[in-house]
Each structure stands twice: as structure tokens, then as C-alpha cells.
């Protein structure tokens, strides 16, 4: 399509404005963490690193970070196992209900988090609590794993569809048994998809707040919950600013790793 000069300029300006809209809020969070003042008024009266050292020593934020990491690792581990199992079943077998399974996998992420949250919450409190298992870190991990399965599944199934089963058959023709073929042929083929899926799952779990709210027991505070609880407390504002800035800066890491891992990495955190 031949665009006129003015149309090109207009598009360039619109795109520039669009990118500004995307990045200005994130930059603002970073700049605001250097704001010596407790209020968020703009422009800041000066710049200081003081709150960064205060935040570094804040035990609440640290503990929440640690809880988030443990939750993310637990949920990712479960999601990796279950997501890979379903991916192999769906990609390598034909059976009744195959399409339904692909649908059910997506459901936990397609439905509003609050619906998933209260469903799990009421199930946990009616089934687990009589058994003596209260809400705690364990139930958070179970909740997160449920919606993390889909990203592992998506990545692995995409990879399996691109690599036909003939490699494994060839390995078996050459004398490898099922396990040997998996270890030497299949696993290396899906390894980077597993890494990408695991990374996405971890990021998804790390960011989740709604399902966490409903599955966490008393005293379990992940980083998003900590931020949410402290966001409106003026006393905590500087520390929240720093934690928020750290999260903005850290968000560059997964995208960089995902880009390096593979070309067919499923994009987006929820897709």
C-alpha cells in the first residue's frame, strides 16, 4: 500500500505516542523510587538512593520475596510435570476427548481469577480442612500450578507438533527402548520448550495476586500481596516504590531469556 508522506508521519507520531504511553508509567515507577519525598507528587524535589538501602533491609518485603520464590518454584515444578504429560498425550496420541482436554487446560486462565480463586478456596476449606490440612503455602502452590499448567502445555505441545514422532521411531529401530529414546532423542528436542514454559510459569506465579488471596493461609504473604497490602500505607510508600522499581527492572530478564531460548516460544504471560 502506497502511503502518502503525511500518512507516514502521522503513523510515526501515533506509534511514538503509543510507545510513550507504554513506557512512561514504567519509567515513572523507577524515577519515583529515587524520590526523597514520601508523597508521589511530580516532579520529585530531588533524587536519592536512600530508600533503596532502607528497602534492602525491610524484612517484610524480603520475606514476601522469599515466599514468592518458593511458591513459584513449587508451582513451576508441578506445572512442568503435568503440562508435559498432557502435551505428550495430546500430541502423540489420538483418543476420545482430546479437544476437551486442550480446552480444560486453558480454562483456569480463561476464567476470571476471582472465580478460580473462590472455587479453589471453597474446595480446600470443605475437603482439606476436615483432613487437618489448612490453607497455607501448600494450597497457594496447588492453586498457582493449576493455571501454570497451560503455559508449559502450550510450549511443549507446539514443539512436539513441529517435531514428528519419526525421530523416536528411528531411535527405536536402532535398538533404543522407550526410556532410552526419550532420554537421548525426545528430551533434547523439547528441552528448550520446557525451559521457556517453566520460565513463563514462574513469571505467571510470581505475578499472581487474586488466586493467591483466596488460597493463602494466614501469615502467607507473597510479594504481590505484600505490595497490595502496603500500597495505601503512607509510612511504607518509599519501600513500595523501590520494590515496584525492582520488579520493573527485573521484567527485562525473562523476555531476554525467552528470546534466546527459542523462536517458537509462546509469547505473552497469559497466552
Amino acid at each position, binding site marked *: *500500500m*502506497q*502511503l502518502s508522506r503525511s500518512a*507516514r508521519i502521522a*503513523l510515526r507520531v*501515533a*506509534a511514538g505516542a503509543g510507545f510513550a*504511553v*507504554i*513506557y512512561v*508509567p*514504567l519509567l*515513572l515507577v523507577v524515577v519515583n523510587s529515587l524520590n526523597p519525598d514520601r*508523597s*508521589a*507528587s*511530580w516532579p520529585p524535589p530531588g533524587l536519592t538512593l536512600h530508600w533503596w538501602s532502607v528497602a534492602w533491609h525491610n524484612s517484610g518485603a524480603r520475606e514476601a520475596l522469599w515466599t514468592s520464590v518458593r511458591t513459584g518454584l513449587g508451582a513451576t515444578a508441578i506445572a512442568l510435570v*503435568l*503440562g508435559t*504429560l*498432557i502435551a505428550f*498425550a495430546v500430541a502423540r*496420541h489420538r483418543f476420545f476427548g482430546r479437544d476437551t*482436554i486442550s480446552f*480444560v*487446560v486453558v*480454562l*483456569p486462565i480463561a*476464567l*476470571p481469577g476471582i*472465580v*478460580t480463586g*473462590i*472455587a*479453589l*478456596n*471453597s*474446595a480446600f476449606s470443605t475437603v482439606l480442612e476436615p483432613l487437618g490440612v489448612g490453607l497455607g503455602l501448600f494450597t497457594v502452590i*496447588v492453586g498457582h500450578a*493449576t493455571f501454570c499448567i497451560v503455559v508449559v502445555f502450550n510450549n511443549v505441545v507446539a514443539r512436539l507438533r513441529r517435531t514428528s514422532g519419526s525421530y523416536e521411531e528411528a531411535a527405536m529401530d536402532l535398538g533404543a*527402548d522407550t*526410556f*532410552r529414546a526419550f532420554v537421548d532423542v525426545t528430551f533434547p528436542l523439547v528441552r528448550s520448550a520446557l525451559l521457556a514454559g517453566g520460565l513463563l510459569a514462574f*513469571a505467571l506465579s510470581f*505475578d499472581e*495476586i487474586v488466586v493467591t488471596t483466596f488460597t493463602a493461609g494466614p501469615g502467607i504473604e507473597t510479594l*504481590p500481596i505484600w*505490595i*497490595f497490602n502496603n*500500597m495505601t500505607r503512607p509510612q511504607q510508600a518509599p519501600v513500595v516504590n523501590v520494590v*515496584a522499581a525492582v*520488579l*520493573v527492572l527485573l*521484567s527485562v530478564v*525473562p*523476555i531476554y531469556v525467552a528470546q534466546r531460548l527459542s523462536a517458537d516460544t509462546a509469547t*505473552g*504471560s*497469559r*497466552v
Partner: protein
Amino acid sequence: MALLTRTAGALHRRPRLRLTLLLTAPLLWLAVLYLGSLTVLFVSAFWTTNSFTSEVVRVWSTDNFHELFTTPVYRQVIVRSVGVAASVTVLCALIAFPVAFYTARVARPRWRPLLVVAILTPLWASYLVKVYAWRLILSEGGLADWMLRPFGLSGPGFGLPAAVLTLTYLWLPYMILPIHTALEQLPANLLDASADLGARAWRTFRSVVLPMVLPSVAAGSIFTFSLSLGDYITVQIVGGKTQLIGNLVYSNIELNLPMAAALGTVPVAVIVLYLLAMRRTGALSSL
């Protein structure tokens, strides 16, 4: 070792057994734990609570749904929530189109992958941090006020417009990406053919580009729409006194779980209807 070899042989000979082993654990998890919980939740929408003790009374009734459709407040909130989801979707599409058009067709090809990464990066930034950013922008004396002051105006503050704005910001990448992909895959010779037939840029856009990109807009809209419809955290943080359906569900959970469940079926039903409508545009296959 012999045992391992024998197991491998057995697995190889019996694909059914292999499939069963693959599916048992995930199906127990998803079908029993997740679908089971959901079913119980939706069944409980037909239960009631004792108004004195807040104990759930497991007697089948449609009272909750009756209340849902006859109480004006509930109806208002439902209409408002759908309105917010629709406005967010329209705003996202309007902002996303020029950005995607630029990244897919106007920018130098060498720059395009980089621009896609630039769109993707904020997708990884924490949801809560992005909402927090808008809380900073919209707070009194914040960036919005500062920018509008020269014009004698002030920012919108916290309220419904702030919620719509923030939600638009949150889900924007979900709209840009599919449109970018569709525009990138648009065959150049179609555009040339249109020009050869005498169409000017605007006509080509309307008759060739738009019809081919619309399914992707629909695909993006599934995310923007359903994510906005279920949200309650953003509304709590920047929405002032605004109530959306998610907030109603949230506030009913402690005191009246059956009512919360009934309220929760509303966004689910709306999203399912929306998905069915979007399926006709072919959006689901381009997800």
C-alpha cells in the same frame, strides 16, 4: 536393569497403557481438583445462607439469581462492568492499530523484531506494579495533574475513568500483538493489486487491510474484554468508589458465599457468550 527393559517393552507394545499413564495425574488434577471445585461453586450458587449465622444452607433454590436480576444495584453493576470491558476493548483497539501498523509495515524491517520485543517487555512487568504506576500518575499532584496544569485542568483522579484508563494500559499489549502479527502476514501483492486497481491508501485500508485484520482484533478483544470483566484489584486501587462485578463477588465471599457464586456466574456466562460470538469471526483459530 532387566525390569526397566521389560517395562519399556510393555509400554511400547501397549499405547493405551502409555496414554493412561500420561493422563492419570493431569486429569486427577484438572478434572477432579479444578473442574470439581468449579462445579461445587456453581452448584452452591443455588444454595442460600442463614442470614443470622452466615452458615450455608444446602437447599436448592433460585433465590440468588432472582435477587441478582431484580435488585437494581446488581443490574447497574453488571451493566457498568460490561460497559467498562467494552470501552477498554475499543480503546485498546484504537490505540493498538496505529502502533501495530507502524511496527508491522512502516518501520524499517531491521527494526521490527526489536519493536515487537518493546511491546512484549511491559507484558512481563508485574500487573500490580503497572496499576501502582497509574496510581502514582493519577494521585493528587501526580504526573497527570502536572501535565494538565498549564491548560488549567487537573487529572481525572481516582474513579471510573481512571479504572478504564488503567485497564486499557494493562491489556494493550494483548491487542497490539495479534494485530501486528496479522498485519505482518498480510501479503504485499494484495496491497499492490489494490493500488493497481486504482484504490488510494484509505480505500485499500478499508477494503483490503481491515477485513483481513479484523479476526485478530477479535482475538485480542477476547483478552481485553474478559480480563477487564473479571478485574477487581485495579478498581480497588484506582477506581475510587466504583464497584464492578468482581468487587461485588469479593465483598460477598465472607458473608454470603452462595450469592458470591451466583454473581461469579455472570462474568463466566458473559465471557462464554463472548467467546461463542467471536468464534464466528474466526478469532479463536488465530489465538
